C-alpha cells in the first residue's frame, strides 16, 4: 500500500495555513499546521513529516533557524522555505543550510504543484534507493552455500520447507559453520525476498547499544544521540531480521524482545510514539539454548517463541565430502580477488585437510586457503602452505572444553584412532581417553 505523504505547514498567518491545508488535503496529502517554529518543532518531536513548508519571517524563531534545527534532528527532511520578500541572499542561505527549495509568496498554483511533486519524487527515490541497496546486500553471498554431503542436503531441504512460511527459525551450529548464510538462504527463498534482510550481531553490542540498535532512538535520548535514528526492527519492515548470537542478550533485552515479537510494535529509545513493523525473525546461536533455558539464563517463553523451527548446521568435520568443493570455491574466490592465476591443491595437502578437525569450521578453512594462496608458490598449494595444527590456538575456540575436544580429536586422527597410542601421546590412561571420547561424542571420520 502506498504511504500517504505528510506535510507540515509552518506560518504565522492563519489564512496561509488554512489555504495550504485545504490545497494539500484536496491533493490527498496528510497535513498538519503550526503557527510558529517552536510549535512546529514540538510537533516534530511526536510525529514525523515527509515535507516541511515553513515561512522565513515568523515571530520568535525564524524559518532559517528552524531549518537548522530540523536538519540537526533529521538530515533527510525535505524542507521548503516560503518567503514574501525573496532575495538571492536569503534563498542561497536557505539552500546552503540544506533546504530542498524555496518559493516566493504568493505562489503560482502551478509552481506549488511542481514543487511538491518534485519533493515527493525525491522522497520516493530516496526510499527506493534505500530499499534496493538493502535488497542487493541481502542477495549477496547466497551462492556461497556449497555442499553435496547428506548433512548439508538435509539442511537445504529444511531451508526449502521453512522459507516460504513466516515462522521464526533458530539456526544452531558451531562458530564458523555458515549460520548467517543459511539465514540469507531462508530470506531469499521467502516471500519477503524483495524486502531487506537486516542482520544484528547481538554479541558484539552492549545492552544499551543493542537496545538503540534494535529499536532506534530519538535525538537527545542519550549523550551522542545527535539525530533520530531508525532501529533494525523498523528497517526490517516487510523483510527479515537476523539476530546472531541470540544467547548473549541480557534478561532485560529478552523481555523487550519477547514483547516486540508478540506485538510487532515498539518505541524508539527516548521516544513516545508506537511504531509497528512487519518482520520475520531468524536467530542463530552456537550455544545449546535448551540448556540455557534449563539453567535459567534464557527465558523459556522467548525460547518457544523463537524456536518454531530449528535448523542445525553441521560442523565441517561431519561433512568431509564438502571440503574439496569448498577448497575449490575458495581458491577461485581468492585467486580472482588477488588477481592471481588459479592454483590447484596437492593430493597430500588435501588428505591433510580431510584429516584435520577444523575447530573453526568453514571460516577456518577459508582463512587457511586465503593464507595458502598468499604464501604459496602460485601454482600448487602444498602441505607446508597450510597452517594445520600449528595455529590451533588462533582459532575460534571459546572454552577449555572446546579446546580439549578439538585437541583430543586431532591426536586421535593423527594416530588413526589407535586408543593406546593416542592415550600415550596425550599422557593419560586409556580409561580417561575413553571417558573424554564419550564426553565429547567423538567419532572416527569415515
Amino acid at each position: 500500500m502506498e504511504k500517504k505523504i505528510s506535510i507540515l505547514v509552518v506560518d504565522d498567518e492563519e489564512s496561509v495555513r488554512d489555504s495550504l491545508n485545504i490545497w494539500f488535503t484536496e491533493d490527498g496529502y496528510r497535513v498538519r499546521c503550526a503557527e510558529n517554529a517552536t510549535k512546529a518543532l514540538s510537533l516534530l518531536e511526536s510525529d514525523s513529516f515527509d515535507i516541511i513548508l515553513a515561512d522565513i519571517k515568523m515571530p520568535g524563531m525564524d524559518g532559517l533557524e528552524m531549518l537548522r534545527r530540523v536538519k540537526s534532528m533529521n538530515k533527510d527532511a525535505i524542507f521548503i522555505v516560503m518567503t514574501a520578500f525573496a532575495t538571492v541572499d536569503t534563498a542561497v542561505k536557505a539552500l546552503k543550510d540544506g533546504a530542498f527549495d524555496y518559493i516566493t509568496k504568493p505562489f503560482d498554483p502551478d509552481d506549488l504543484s511542481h514543487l511538491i511533486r518534485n519533493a515527493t519524487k525525491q522522497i520516493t527515490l530516496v526510499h527506493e534507493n534505500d530499499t534496493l541497496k538493502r535488497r542487493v546486500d541481502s542477495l549477496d553471498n547466497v551462492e556461497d552455500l556449497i555442499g553435496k554431503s547428506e548433512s548439508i542436503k538435509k539442511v537445504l531441504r529444511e531451508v526449502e520447507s521453512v522459507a516460504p512460511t513466516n515462522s521464526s527459525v533458530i539456526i544452531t551450529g558451531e562458530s564458523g559453520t555458515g549460520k548467517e548464510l543459511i539465514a540469507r538462504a531462508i530470506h531469499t527463498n521467502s516471500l519477503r525476498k524483495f524486502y531487506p534482510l537486516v542482520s544484528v550481531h547481538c554479541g558484539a553490542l552492549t545492552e544499551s547499544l543493542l537496545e538503540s540498535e534494535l529499536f532506534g532512538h530519538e535525538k537527545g535520548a542519550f549523550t551522542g544521540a545527535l539525530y533520530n535514528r531508525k532501529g533494525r526492527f523498523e528497517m526490517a519492515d516487510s523483510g527479515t531480521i537476523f539476530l546472531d548470537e541470540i544467547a548473549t542478550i541480557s534478561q532485560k533485552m529478552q523481555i523487550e524482545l519477547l514483547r516486540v515479537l508478540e506485538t510487532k510494535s515498539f518505541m524508539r529509545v527516548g521516544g513516545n510514539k508506537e511504531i509497528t513493523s512487519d518482520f520475520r525473525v531468524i536467530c542463530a546461536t552456537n550455544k545449546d539454548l535448551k540448556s540455557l533455558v534449563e539453567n535459567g539464563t534464557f527465558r523459556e517463553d522467548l525460547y518457544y517463541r523463537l524456536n518454531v523451527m530449528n535448523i542445525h548446521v553441521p560442523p565441517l568435520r561431519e561433512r568431509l565430502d564438502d571440503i574439496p568443493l569448498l577448497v575449490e570455491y575458495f581458491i577461485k574466490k581468492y585467486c580472482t580477488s588477488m588477481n592471481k592465476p588459479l592454483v590447484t591443491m596437492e593430493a597430500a595437502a588435501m588428505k591433510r585437510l580431510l584429516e584435520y578437525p577444523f575447530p573453526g569450521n568453514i571460516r577456518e578453512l577459508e582463512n587457511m586457503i586465503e593464507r595458502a594462496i598468499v604464501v604459496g608458490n602460485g601454482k600448487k598449494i602444498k602441505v607446508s602452505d597450510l597452517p594445520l595444527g600449528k595455529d590451533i590456538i588462533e582459532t575460534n575456540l571459546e572454552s577449555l572444553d572446546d579446546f580439549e575436544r578439538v585437541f583430543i580429536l586431532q591426536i586421535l586422527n593423527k594416530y588413526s584412532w589407535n586408543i593406546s597410542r593416542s592415550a600415550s601421546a596425550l599422557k593419560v590412561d586409556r580409561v580417561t581417553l575413553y571417558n573424554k571420547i564419550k564426553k565429547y561424542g567423538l567419532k572416527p571420520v569415515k
Partner: protein
Amino acid sequence: MSAQHITLLTFGFFDKNLLKEVAEAVALGFRCEVVCKEARIDLGEYFNAGRRQYNGDRLLSVVGTLHLPDSMKTIGLFSVDLYIPILTYIFGQAHLGGEAGVASMFRLGNELYGLAPELLLQNERFIKEVIHELGHTFGLLHCYDVSCVMRSSAYVEDIDQKEKYFCANCYAALGFIGAVAK
C-alpha cells in the same frame, strides 16, 4: 422544490444559455435537481487594489452564508479574477465536505493567454471547474485519473485534458447522491 437540489448562485451577469448548460451538466453529474439563483452583493468590498483581484476566501464565506438549508450544496459563479492570499490566482475553491464553493470564468478564456477567443472551450472549462468544486463539497479529493473531472488543474490546458465526468472510483464515492435522489 426537492430538498436534494444543488444551487448555482450567480454573482454578476451570466449568459442564460451557459447557465443552462452548467445546470444540465451538474444535474447529470450529481443526479439531482439544480436551481439557479442570482445574488446581489457589492463585489467592490472584496476587491484587493494591490493585486487587482477579488478575495476568494472571503467570497467563499459569503456563499456559505447565502447557502440555504433546503439546498444540498451552493456554488457561487463569478466572472471576476479570484485569488487567495497564498496563491496568485484560483479557478475556484470549496470547503472539503462542506456546503459551499466558488468558481470563476475569468482565467478560463483563451484571450488571457494571447490566443484567439473560443467561447465554447471557455464554457466547457467552466462546467468542469463547477463540477470539480462541487465534487470537493461532497468530500472528493483530487484524483490521479487523467480524464476524471476531479483531477487537479493548475492551468487551463490541464482542465482541457480532463472530461466533465467522474471516473469510476469518484463516481462510486458519490454513490449516496443517487440513492438520496430516488
